[in-house]
């Protein structure tokens, strides 16, 4: 595949970050990338976003943490991760030698935590960008998620941006009345791009035991079930901001990628689909190359926001 498609231009840019192609993998669904090496040629991807990292290591939530739903799944992993220090020494180390931009997804319970993680990651070789997960509850503000209040979202953006020399992508929560307000707030605060959507908050109950199916009671809904909501929000946000939009939510195939790009996404991230088909991301790259060739397009970029109305 690689060589015959040499002439096809799949490149896109997220701020100063230039990607070979628009296909990335979503945080929390691709481990620390190496897990997928048996199945995927990582070098062929546009980028990989690794599992969310916090300042201190977190054990995560007790089991059960995942449950399947209709065309989707709920997860309440509880942000299990090794903490930023071990992440840098072990995980980033192991990613040396891969020719793909590695974006680090970060999260915190306070503004300070976000700031500290950004500082720790600043200048670490191999970190091509930061993706800020603002769906976490702000412990200082009584647990209201950073991502639901424009001012709070803006503060997090500023805190991270001031301490990062690489592009900063803010990852938006869909659990809001008007996602364009949050998108504009983080754009104004200096975000280089926004990515969306994170999971919808959901719940599942086992009627036999009369208990929640997740130990954490509620969890995040992902997979094909949420694609229509994701596509709508990407469409709305792409019209509201002028920074690049990265589309996420239920993407499984080349066709899905095309739809998100038509809606206005410059790039996309494949999440839950990696579990079902570990090769989903690389296959989407192949599919895009074929599409651009077949349609005789100069570049995949022609597609971005190309939805025809009326």
């Amino acid at each position, binding site marked *: 595949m690689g060589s015959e498609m040499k002439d096809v231009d799949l490149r896109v840019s997220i701020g100063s970050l230039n990607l070979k192609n628009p296909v990335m993998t979503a945080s929390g669904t*691709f*481990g620390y990338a190496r897990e997928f090496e048996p199945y995927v040629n990582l070098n062929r991807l546009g980028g990989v976003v690794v599992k969310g990292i916090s300042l201190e290591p977190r054990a995560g939530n007790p089991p059960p943490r995942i449950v*399947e739903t209709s065309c989707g*799944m709920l997860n309440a992993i509880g942000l299990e991760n090794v903490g930023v220090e071990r992440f840098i020494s072990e995980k980033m180390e192991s990613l040396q030698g891969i020719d793909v931009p590695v974006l680090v997804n970060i999260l915190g319970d306070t503004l300070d935590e976000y700031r500290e993680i950004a500082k720790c990651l600043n200048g670490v070789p191999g970190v091509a960008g930061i993706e800020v997960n603002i769906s976490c509850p702000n412990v200082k503000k009584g647990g209201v998620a950073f991502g639901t209040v424009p001012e709070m979202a803006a503060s997090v953006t500023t805190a991270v941006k001031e301490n990062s020399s690489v592009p900063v992508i803010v990852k938006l929560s869909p659990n809001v009345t008007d996602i364009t307000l949050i998108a504009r707030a983080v754009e104004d605060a200096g975000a280089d791009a926004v990515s969306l959507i994170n999971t919808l908050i959901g719940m599942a109950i086992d009627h036999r035991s009369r208990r929640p199916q997740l130990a954490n009671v509620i969890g995040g809904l992902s997979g094909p079930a949420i694609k229509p909501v994701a596509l709508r929000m990407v469409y709305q946000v792409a019209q509201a901001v002028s920074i690049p939009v990265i589309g996420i939510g239920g993407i499984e195939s080349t066709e899905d990628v095309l739809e998100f790009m038509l809606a206005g996404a410059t790039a996309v991230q494949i999440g839950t689909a990696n579990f*079902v*088909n570990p090769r989903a991301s690389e296959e989407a790259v192949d599919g895009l190359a074929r599409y651009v060739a077949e349609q005789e397009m100069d570049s995949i970029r022609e597609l971005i926001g190309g939805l025809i109305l009326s």
Partner: protein
Amino acid sequence: MSQFQEKTQIIRIERLTTDIIRLTLESSRIVSTAKPGQFVMIRTGNGKDPLLRRPFSISQIANGKYFQILFKVVGRGTALLAHCREGESLSVLGPLGSGFRIHSNGPNCLVGGGMGIAPLLFLGKTMARQCSAPPLVVLGARNREELAPLVDDFAELGLSVHPATDDGSFGHHGLVTDVLKNLGLGDDCMTYVCGPHLMMTAVHLFCKDRGYGCQVSMETAMACGMGACLGCIVPLEEGGYGHACSDGPVFDAKELLWEVK
């Protein structure tokens, strides 16, 4: 690279009981690296519902290219699998996870309950070849109908099987732990256990008591099977969690946190 994502052809479908089915699948690559205790993740349908793959132990390999899974129809995924036809293809990911660590010299005892018997056949076959002495095998199930065909498989390997059934219709009337107690296992015996959680808890306690080694194969919900989703955790004795798909599914029972009421 020792894991593969493959379209495997269904060579044979055997219905052992109304709801226990054995599939023979073909993949020389998966078979080439498979070890007893490892599992595969199978897409049970072509649609998006059910969305996730389902984990199944590798219960046999043969001729360098065939492997078998043995499963019970318990929900939609397994119902779809049961509906497949010979000649069709299934998408399989594997082999995944850690296998059993075989003690080649000590006395070995395999303890299986229900569908937990599946991986023990592959293990028993391997031991029969590798170990100085054949393992003892203790198998439990609900009744004769479910247990007899599985016992036959072990008997074919020349292994002596001690069966137990809940209803007494085959072998001992009662639990596998009753059988274990009366077996006179050697001092440094290693047990290899796969079955319902309650059974594994009981066998672990029994082994702890006697100072036997005990390896258990854990079942949890799994989304990816390869260490990426962090969904498949089991609580560890030392605190924190292990991941059933990548640290396991086979764990040293001593390392796990057992909730004993």
